[in-house]
């Protein structure tokens, strides 16, 4: 479904991603792990089109998306949820998700329908599925951190992606919130959503992901099912056993 080939990206002299390869198939849950500064977030931003790679290609469902703008990539069914909460602060929870839905259903240039009557059921459905319906009309700046992270996911879902990319979805969450989020993601995956994510909590990754890719210093060193990755000596030395 998603194929990342030999991506390279540097900022000035600093090489953030040296050589990254990644493959994601339909229906999978794939995790990217690696120490801080390994280039995970940069890789995700390249895939979603916010950064342009210096080298390499990305294809999504057979189509080359390497040089596409973020909004085009999104329209192809690939959605990014951010690590640092990145929502529309001044708007309500409902409006946050509605924006994404409006954009998907092509209402961006509808000038005369009152927007509070547009796409209401679809938006409420997404809010219900992530459990935010109760705070529907709150200004989202006033939500708790955990709720905002869930809202992140809800906004990404608003564009009805086939592949959802999550940058540290549970960072900063309490254990209960983490558990709830993971079960939400599992539920979404069962409904047919492919998920690519990166995460610090190694135990969580190994229990949740179908396949794992390990990055170190900008290079993807291995890719495979959890068991295989766990066995890999290189990984053990470099990451699990070694640093941190």
């Amino acid at each position: 479904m998603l194929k990342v080939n030999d991506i390279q990206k540097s900022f000035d002299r600093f090489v953030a991603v040296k050589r990254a390869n990644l493959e994601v198939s339909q229906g999978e849950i794939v995790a990217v792990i690696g120490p801080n500064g390994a280039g995970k977030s940069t890789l995700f931003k390249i895939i979603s089109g916010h950064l342009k790679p210096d080298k390499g290609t990305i294809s999504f469902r057979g189509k080359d998306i390497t040089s596409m703008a973020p909004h085009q990539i999104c329209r192809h069914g690939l959605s990014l949820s951010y690590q640092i909460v990145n929502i529309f602060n001044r708007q309500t929870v409902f409006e946050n998700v509605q924006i994404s839905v409006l954009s998907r259903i092509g209402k961006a240039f509808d000038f005369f329908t009152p927007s509070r009557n547009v796409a209401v059921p679809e938006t409420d459905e997404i809010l219900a599925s992530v459990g935010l319906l109760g705070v529907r009309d709150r200004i989202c700046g006033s939500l708790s951190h955990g709720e905002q992270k869930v809202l992140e996911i809800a906004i990404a879902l608003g564009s009805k992606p086939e592949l959802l990319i999550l940058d540290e979805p549970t960072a900063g969450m309490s254990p209960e919130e983490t558990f709830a989020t993971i079960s939400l993601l599992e539920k979404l995956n069962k409904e047919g959503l492919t998920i690519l994510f990166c995460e610090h909590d190694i135990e969580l990754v190994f229990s949740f992901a179908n396949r794992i890719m390990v990055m170190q210093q900008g290079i993807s060193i291995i890719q495979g099912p959890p068991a295989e990755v766990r066995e890999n000596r290189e990984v053990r030395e470099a990451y699990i056993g070694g640093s941190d």
Partner: protein
Amino acid sequence: MGLSRASSKLVSLSFLFIGLLALSVAPLFLPRFFIYLTALVLLTGLLATSLNLALGFGGMYQFNHSVFYGLGAYGLSLMLIKTSLPPLLGYIVGPVISAIMALIMGIICVRLSKLYFGMLQLSLGSLVWVVIYRWYSFTGGDDGLHGVPIPQLFSSVTGSYYFTLVVTFFCMVILYFIVHSPFGRILQAIRDNPERSASVGIRVRLQQLIALVIAGFFAGVAGGLFVTVEGSAFPDLLSWTLSLELIIMCLLGGWFTFFGPMLGAAIIVCLRALVGGYTEFWTLALAIILMLLIYFLPEGALGFFERIWHGKASASGEVK
């Protein structure tokens, strides 16, 4: 909740109705000068509201909005003076010229962010200003165009007032719908977070460009109204100091509110007409108002009232 929403809507609508009624019978009671002043307030309010579409709702530093205002005024005046086309056509031609200019300037500026956007627009606007200012044979140069042959029906003080009232009302309704439409919601989303907007599939630049064109169009309408009320068009209409004054109007009224700029325009225009003529220290007053505003009321007068109201609502019903 639903019931109170409906009743609040009813209250606002009835206020709107009373207001309109008051405005439409005003010429029967008010002295002529105030009728003229109200017309000026209405058209400047429309201009400020159109600016606010780009500035407050679009988050774009539209530093030279008055260019579109001036172009609308010149478009109408030149058509009335130089051609024998039906006069009402001029009220379309002017704004269309403004919109085209907004499109051209928008295409060049929209890829830049914030201060760069504003500055590039300022220099492009200055170029337009220079052309108008220098093209003596066509635009009348710095003397401007005076004695524009406005159609008989709207050339009197009362006539131009009613014309301004009707046009402003319809334009405000259209702008209200635009701000509250999906288009407006997405525009505000871009203002708050352009990066995120792009990643949910919004074509940020296109959306902003269209907002600029709409804003330019309505600024052009306001320019046409100005000519109707004053009978003149002159290069001052395109000056960047007027643009800054418009931004102050938006700020004063509150730029996250729809009616704020109209209120700001009312305050500034009245103060300017009634204080400006008497004292040479009018700018001093403006400066002090502006400073106090930035310190104490950054959301503007209306924004402040709405926040108080919001605060009350959340205190009674929801968690802060």
